């Protein structure tokens, strides 16, 4: 062993695949270290002999590095590039070191070595599984006020980021014929085989390089060359083919319906100075015809007392650190195993100059070949033995060994211990695809059985252990022809699930099944004793498998212990469901581009920029940004709105109505169609005229409203509410396509074809007159509720004489690209005449003064046309329209329904709160009987008092009655009135 470089005294000269000259500096808990490029944080720390990495969730026990992959439950760290780029809960075994990385341990205070929380470990007899269900109940409030905050502070792992993430993320949809998950021997072979067929192939692997198990398995020979080298050469060959995409550092995290898979590619987290244009991660959403699952298998740990000390590690992980990273995990390593794979780890370590204290094997008869090799290398093998305990505070310093069934124990000094209980096929994706597993009794494992989608599993994830067989299977899955040979040094045997000897008896022994959540074998036994007989109950009661590694190591052990305790075979106990994601996925990646301006389209009208320049405040209405009011210098909202209201009534105002939905209804049966879709009659409407229409659904409740203009016998210009446009069109299409397909009529959304400039007020006509050509605007020629196609400022326009204010009103529709230009000219003239710009707030007030309703504000989906006082808009002559039957249901025709009425506060200065509830007797005890609520309420500058509209039970029969609106601090008396507050005779509108 030589401490050859400053990249760590545990580096083995000549071992590993990194270049010694290429180094990177990082800090861990403030201390600086040098790593080699290609190191994971785990390998870099191990190279410096650092084994204590973190603290466990519940007992705060010291923990080290257990694995070399994404299944790592212990070594979770906080990794940051800078203050805003801080990432909690990062697996040290996955994160590659980059120059300048700042890395910190988690879940400890004040420091990793001296953690107050470790007191929990001493109290652990009290903290058995599910203990919190049995206590913390007295007194009543104490759970929320005292116990829960303490538990919360102790729980959790990393600290959430506190700054907005400055990185960006990308997303891409991808289509292929075959997606291959995993680029180990099986995946690469399948890819080669599939690639020659010319199909479009995507090969994905989560590691920085392809190779899978070949990272640690240095003895496998494929196609006559070292396995790892073959893998890299094969990847290069595949990358060169036009029909193949190879994605590394990319995890298939979810296998969803109909060949849809989610992938996450880590683009820059390993780079010291990423390009600004590079996303941190990229989401790939793949639709594939076929999936080849070559996801390999995961080694299991041994379950025995104090099996969680730093320095205890999976055998394959120790091999990865040695063979790939060139790092020895200790000087004097013990081995505890039930499977041959750990022997190979011992051989590799021994050959690298590490002494092997002993191989402790639970089996009486390990594989002959490995046993022979151990003898050759002079390694002590204790068959039929168990490790029953370990010692060492922050790192293992000895293992206690006993012969099976014997009480004699002896301590063997070690500075690391490698373990293997065998291998669990990675069937996560198969299971997510809703395939059905079967239990392989002989090998104590679940393997794929029945497929629910077009997928095939190859290699270790399919339970195929033999290399030659695996290669054949992969070639077959790929569908091509290929000659490939492979050779293993040893055929592995063995494996066990459940607790080894020394995991019990239950008193005071902690044999961990799930490391991160501190679930021990006795916790699982306790769950069974307490009546938890379903594996899901056991999981939930103990939290086994619910940590951030989602049970990759613990599920099979937990199941086996439960099975033994229940006296039922494993398949009868069942298996918990594998859920996406396979490994945790960053929210930012799933969100990808949908952030900031791209979170949701902000729809703006053609006049938006001009309105902005005039100082408009905007409000959100659905996706639209609408001008809300136009404050002048020094004005607050109320002042501005009062001025706008007064100006419109006295002079005129200009309003942007472009967002109103517009649907062009064209065809010989257009009127007949509208007859069916609206409660009103349309065949009587003459071309050139408009009518206000109400639309109900079959249930008879108001769905939308708007003015409809008839441009020709066969052409209507329908308007809808701003928010209702898409759903109204969908509703109309539904009836047209499926209920009334015989009608010759078509619908086209023209909302955005037209910019709509409303000019309202006594001077409206005077303002627009000079701009309009081809239409006489006189009252006689163009009275209220008229429509005409004409020319405005030289461009074809649709001019409506309509009013939502009660004043003379016009709505100029010009093709949208001309909107800004026309608006500018009209406003220039209007301004000169003393008019104003006004926004939606003023529009709301002016219409309320006239008693015009806003669907969605004064109605809420439970209001009939009659309730709203619009019974006149429901045709009595028509024999059919959508809603005709719903309107006649008993509850819709009963007495006492809520009806829209006006409310006037006794104190004219008092403005009711919209949403205020109305009662007869404000002094009644709670719960009070409520008659309805205030739907609209404003200060009316024109009237010099407040006005309101309300839904009130039996409202129209209560005219003149005094009711009350009780607020938190006072009760407001109101009088029920008519809904029209201004110009009841309607003279102004026709002026």
């Amino acid at each position, binding site marked *: 062993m030589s401490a050859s470089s400053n990249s760590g005294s545990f580096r083995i000269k000549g071992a590993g695949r990194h270049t010694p000259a290429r180094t990177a500096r990082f800090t861990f808990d403030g201390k600086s270290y040098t790593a080699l490029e290609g190191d994971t944080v785990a390998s870099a720390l191990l190279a410096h002999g650092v084994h204590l990495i973190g603290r466990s969730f519940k007992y705060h026990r010291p923990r080290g590095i257990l694995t070399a992959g994404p299944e790592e439950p212990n070594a979770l760290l906080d990794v940051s590039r800078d203050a805003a780029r801080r990432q909690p809960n990062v697996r040290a075994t996955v994160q590659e070191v980059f120059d300048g990385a700042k890395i910190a341990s988690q879940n400890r205070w004040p420091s990793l070595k001296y953690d107050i929380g470790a007191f929990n470990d001493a109290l652990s007899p009290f903290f058995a599984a599910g203990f919190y269900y049995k206590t913390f109940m007295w007194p009543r409030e104490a759970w929320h006020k005292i116990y829960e905050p303490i538990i919360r502070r102790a729980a959790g792992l990393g600290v959430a980021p506190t700054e907005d993430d400055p990185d*960006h993320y*990308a*997303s*891409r*949809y*991808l*289509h292929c014929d075959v997606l291959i998950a995993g680029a180990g021997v099986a995946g690469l072979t399948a890819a080669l085989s599939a690639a020659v067929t010319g199909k*479009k192939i995507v090969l994905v692997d989560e590691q920085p390089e392809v190779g899978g198990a070949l990272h640690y398995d240095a003895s496998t020979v494929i196609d006559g060359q070292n396995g790892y080298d073959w893998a890299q050469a094969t990847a290069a060959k595949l990358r060169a083919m036009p029909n193949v995409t190879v994605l590394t550092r990319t995890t298939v995290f979810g296998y969803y319906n109909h060949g849809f898979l989610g992938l996450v590619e880590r*683009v820059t987290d390993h780079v010291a100075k990423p*390009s600004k*244009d*590079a*996303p941190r991660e*990229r989401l790939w*959403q793949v*639709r594939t015809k076929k999936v080849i699952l070559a996801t390999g298998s995961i080694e299991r740990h041994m379950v025995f007392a104090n099996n969680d000390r730093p320095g205890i590690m999976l055998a394959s992980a120790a091999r990865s650190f040695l063979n790939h990273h060139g790092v020895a995990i200790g000087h004097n390593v013990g081995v505890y195993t039930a499977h041959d794979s750990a022997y190979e780890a011992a051989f590799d370590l021994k050959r690298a100059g590490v002494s092997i204290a002993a191989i402790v094997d639970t089996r009486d008869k390990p594989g002959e070949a490995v046993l022979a090799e151990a003898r050759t290398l002079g390694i002590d093998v204790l068959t039929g033995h168990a490790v029953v305990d370990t010692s060492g505070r922050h790192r293992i310093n000895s293992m206690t060994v006993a012969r099976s069934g014997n009480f004699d124990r002896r301590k063997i000094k070690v500075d690391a211990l490698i373990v293997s209980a065998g291998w669990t096929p990675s069937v996560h994706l198969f299971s997510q695809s809703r395939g059905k597993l079967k239990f392989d009794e002989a090998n104590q494992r679940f393997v794929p059985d029945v497929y629910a989608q077009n997928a095939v599993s190859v290699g270790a994830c399919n339970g195929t252990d033999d290399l030659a067989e695996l290669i054949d299977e992969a070639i077959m899955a790929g569908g091509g022809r290929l000659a490939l040979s492979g050779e293993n040094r040893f055929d592995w045997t063995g494996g066990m699930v459940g607790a080894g000897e020394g995991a019990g008896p239950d008193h005071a022994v902690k044999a961990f099944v799930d490391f991160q959540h501190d679930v021990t074998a006795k916790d699982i036994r306790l769950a069974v004793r307490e009546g938890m007989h379903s594996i899901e109950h056991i999981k939930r009661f103990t939290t086994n498998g619910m940590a951030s590694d989602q049970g990759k190591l613990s599920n099979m052990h937990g199941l086996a212990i439960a099975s033994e305790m229940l006296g039922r075979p494993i398949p009868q106990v069942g298996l918990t469901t594998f859920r996406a994601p396979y490994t945790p996925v960053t929210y930012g990646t799933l969100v990808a*581009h*949908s952030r900031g*301006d*791209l979170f*949701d*389209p*902000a*729809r*703006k*009208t*053609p006049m938006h920029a001009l309105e902005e320049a005039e100082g408009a405040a905007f409000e959100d209405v659905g*996706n*639209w940004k609408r001008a809300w009011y136009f404050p002048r210098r020094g004005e607050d909202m109320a002042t501005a709105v009062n001025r706008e209201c007064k100006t419109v009534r006295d002079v005129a105002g200009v309003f942007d109505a472009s967002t109103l939905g517009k649907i*062009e209804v*064209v*065809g*010989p049966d257009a009127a007949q169609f509208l007859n069916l879709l609206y409660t009103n009659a349309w065949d009587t409407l003459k071309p050139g005229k408009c009518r206000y229409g109400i639309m109900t659904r079959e249930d008879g409740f108001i769905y939308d409203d708007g003015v409809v203009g008839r441009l020709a016998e066969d052409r209507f210009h329908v308007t809808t509410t701003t928010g209702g446009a898409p759903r109204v069109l969908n509703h109309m299409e539904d009836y047209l396509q499926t209920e009334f397909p015989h009608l*010759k*009529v*078509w619908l*086209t*959304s*023209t*909302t*955005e*074809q*037209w910019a709509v400039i409303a000019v309202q007020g006594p001077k409206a006509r005077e303002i627009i007159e*000079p*701009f309009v050509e081809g239409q006489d605007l006189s009252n006689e020629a163009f009275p209220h509720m008229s429509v005409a196609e004409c020319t*405005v*400022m*030289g*461009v074809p326009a649709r001019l409506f004489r309509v009013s939502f204010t009660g004043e003379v009103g016009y709505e100029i529709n*010009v*093709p*949208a*690209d*001309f909107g*800004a*230009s*026309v608006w500018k*000219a009209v406003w220039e003239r209007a301004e000169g005449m003393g008019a104003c710009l006004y926004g939606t707030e003023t529009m709301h007030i002016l219409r309320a003064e006239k008693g015009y309703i806003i669907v969605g504000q004064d109605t809420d989906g439970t209001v009939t046309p009659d309730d709203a006082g619009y019974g006149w808009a429901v045709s009595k002559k028509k024999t059919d329209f959508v809603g005709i039957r719903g309107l006649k249901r008993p509850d819709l025709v009963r007495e006492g329904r809520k009806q829209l009425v006006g409310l006037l506060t006794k104190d004219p200065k008092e403005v009711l709160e919209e949403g205020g509830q109305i009662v007869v007797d404000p002094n009644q005890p709670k719960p009070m009987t409520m008659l309805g609520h205030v739907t609209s309420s404003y200060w009316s500058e024109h009237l010099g008092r407040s006005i309101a509209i309300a839904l009130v039970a039996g409202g129209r029969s209560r005219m003149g009655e005094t009711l009350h609106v009780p607020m938190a601090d006072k009760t407001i008396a109101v009088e029920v009135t008519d809904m029209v507050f201004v110009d009841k005779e309607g003279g102004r509108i026709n002026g």
Partner: protein
Amino acid sequence: MAETATRSLPLSGIHGGSATVRLEPAAPATRIALRVAMEDVGTLSGALGVDLPVRPKTSAFANGRTALWLGPDEWLVIDEGESGLMTAAANSGATHSAADVSHRNTAILVSGPGAADAINAGCSQDLSLEAFPVGACSRTLFGKAEIVLLRTAEDAFRVEVWRSFSDYAFGLLAEGARDAAL
């Protein structure tokens, strides 16, 4: 009044793209949303001077006009000049619906070797040449906006989008273009 309205395009002045993707707003065009029953397709084709395609996902081009199949009785007809599409349709004599949508839509031209990748940042369709050859067109979703996509060349697309969604579409294309260049 002498003053004549001037036209301002929703994406005027905007530009963007990356090393492999060029993004530019298309020139103004005349467009109609055309609806006509199968039996009258021939008549309308004659009137418009372009054969309305009847196979899904296809388009036709003739006399400066492009007709895009959007649905079994629905086409988007684009004329890049100031032409009388509405009048031509009206004069066909056949029952149909034509609505002028020249200003409802605007278009973004996406070109370059990364064009398909840029669009696939938000479009779930397979844009390989086998699945979406030159001339193919489809209404679809691009992120959270509806678009009509037309492939005009192996490495060029026209993205038709409603004007109020055009900022969003351009912004998302710019992100896609940036990523496609990596």
